[in-house]
């Protein structure tokens, strides 16, 4: 874990321990602080930020590492979410436990990843983007219309009353008292999501710095040269699709368990674009950047929603523009500004950091 942190933060050996301790305390205490300072609603936003980070990290494998532009990524999120919703709700009368349904959702998403990947192997750039876009829409429209002749997905109404995430008798849907502290449901979900986010970060880091990761990046840089160097581009690309989709499916399952309700509306093109924005805005191929992008793109719109009303009151004495519409305007403006000023993203892949890490490794060996 310490080594992972060292990869993430440009600090020396002793600093890494300190940073590790501080970061652990901050991450563990975060929901309580947020609850106290901003209210329960913001803990919920934190949870969504974690879900989006998982999604963004998954998409980062496909877009950031392997360079395959995927505009339908949210479909895998939908597959994971609906898998959980169908197998653990009154909809089909199935109530399978969380620890079966979640991996199953991730696995199913992985399968869909290969299913999307296989026919698009020969496509690149714009053409691949269009096909993936279509794939994303197909999944959403299927979910929307699979309520007749046999009602499977309950159509546009979506599936409600999904079982909460439950470990044996311990349900994350209820408030619990542990170690003398009161843990509301939303806090418990935060810790679960945090665990999975850290897991996804860990997997991403390990993959980035491996034979497979190098092959992905080689394909991104020059597919023809990668082929000539003996990389089986078909398998390696499918692997990227499958890994990315697995993370998406995982996040989807967690989302369904947390929300207790899924409907096709949550899986539109806008969501795909938002996740893609996180990856591109933060810095493609750099995990720090993707984390930053994920946090910003969830927190910023909410902050603007809550902040733009009072800010207008303060400046003009009255609310001139409806905060709800103003926030998307400002959000769009922020995106354009960032892309103009930092076309490589807010935190682009840092060569210097990689330089230090590899030199150190070589010295240690």
């Amino acid at each position, binding site marked *: 874990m310490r080594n992972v942190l060292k990869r993430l933060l440009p600090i020396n050996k002793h600093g890494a321990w300190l940073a590790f301790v501080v970061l652990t305390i901050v991450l563990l205490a975060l929901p309580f602080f947020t609850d106290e300072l901003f209210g329960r609603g913001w803990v919920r936003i934190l949870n969504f930020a974690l879900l989006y980070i998982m999604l963004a990290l998954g998409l980062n494998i496909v877009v950031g590492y392997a360079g395959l532009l995927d505009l339908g990524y949210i479909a895998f999120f939908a597959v994971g979410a609906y898998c959980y919703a169908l197998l653990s709700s009154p909809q089909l009368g199935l109530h399978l436990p969380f620890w079966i349904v979640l991996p199953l959702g991730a696995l199913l998403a992985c399968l869909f990843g290969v299913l999307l990947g296989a026919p698009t192997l020969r496509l690149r750039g714009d053409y691949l983007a269009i096909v993936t876009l279509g794939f994303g829409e197909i999944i959403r429209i299927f979910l929307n219309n699979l309520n007749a002749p046999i009602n499977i997905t309950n159509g546009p109404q979506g599936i409600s009353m999904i079982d909460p995430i439950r470990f044996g008798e311990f349900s994350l849907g209820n408030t619990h008292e542990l170690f003398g502290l009161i843990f509301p449901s939303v806090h418990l979900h935060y810790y679960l999501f945090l665990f999975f986010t850290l897991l996804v970060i860990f997997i991403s880091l390990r993959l980035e710095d491996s034979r497979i990761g*190098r*092959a992905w*990046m080689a394909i991104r840089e020059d597919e*023809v040269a990668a*082929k000539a160097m*003996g*990389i089986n581009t078909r398998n390696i690309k499918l692997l990227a699709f499958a890994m990315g989709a697995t993370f998406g499916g995982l996040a989807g399952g967690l989302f369904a368990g947390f929300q207790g309700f899924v409907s096709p509306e949550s899986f539109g093109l806008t969501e795909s674009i938002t996740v893609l924005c996180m990856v591109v805005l933060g810095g493609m191929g750099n995990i720090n950047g993707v984390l930053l992008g994920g946090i910003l793109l969830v927190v910023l719109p909410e902050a603007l929603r809550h902040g733009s009303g009072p800010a207008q009151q303060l400046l003009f004495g009255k609310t001139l523009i409806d905060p709800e519409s103003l926030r998307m305007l400002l959000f769009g403006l922020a995106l354009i500004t960032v892309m103009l000023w930092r076309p490589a993203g807010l935190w682009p892949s840092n*060569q210097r950091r990689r330089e230090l890490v590899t030199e150190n490794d070589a010295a240690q060996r």
Partner: protein
Amino acid sequence: MKTPLKFDINLLELSGVAKRFGGLSALSDISLHIQRGEIYGLIGPNGAGKTTLFNILTGLYQADSGHFTFNNTEYNGRCQPHVLAQAGIARTFQNIRLFANMTALENVMVGRHLRTSSGIWGALTRNARTRIEEHEIVQHARTLLNYVGIDRPHQTLAKNLSYGEQRRLEIARALATDPKLLALDEPAAGMNATETENLKELLLSIRASGITVLLIEHDVKFVLGLCDRVAVLDYGKKIAEDVPEKIRCNPAVITAYLGAEPNIPAYAEIQS
């Protein structure tokens, strides 16, 4: 007659390889053989089909007909590139195709991909086997970078290397795949006299290490001074294949490069 044993066996033998692009016959009925341990030159005017032949040999193009035997295995000219790379054909490109945003070291490390095997599980657990393999990859890559003479820090991004260094990095990356045949597409293009001289030494040293070299080059002097045997392509046909001394005075080759004696009646009329 007694010839050295290492020249006895052909490493590569092409027979009847042909490739068309629509109405254009890029290669027609090419047959040639390359012996183990030689430096074999492929020359010809622009558009003669040299690079097309390379692309077929490395699986980037599919041949329309014909087949070739490499290292005692027959291939039908419609193989996947990674199969041929696995068999031991490595190449460089005419217009340098490095992984621009990866470091020089990483570029060569990618070349080790097909001689190593750790997968997802190894990457995630980073078990002893994977660590040893990664270590071996890094060491091998560093050795090769030094071998081709890249003195710059190995962490320099490929795109920030000088032109000559990029050319040599491509050779190092190709060598990392442990090739039996190293196919170089115009390695001396754009190099100055010193760089060309260094390249010549590098190629001789590569050959001395037991790797057969196939070379496309426009610099005829360079090719004729370095190669053991040379084939000349013109309009997709092999017009000559011989030792450099004989290629130099082959009338067909001179015609291809300099044009034929004008014997068109109209031309003669103008002259008179």
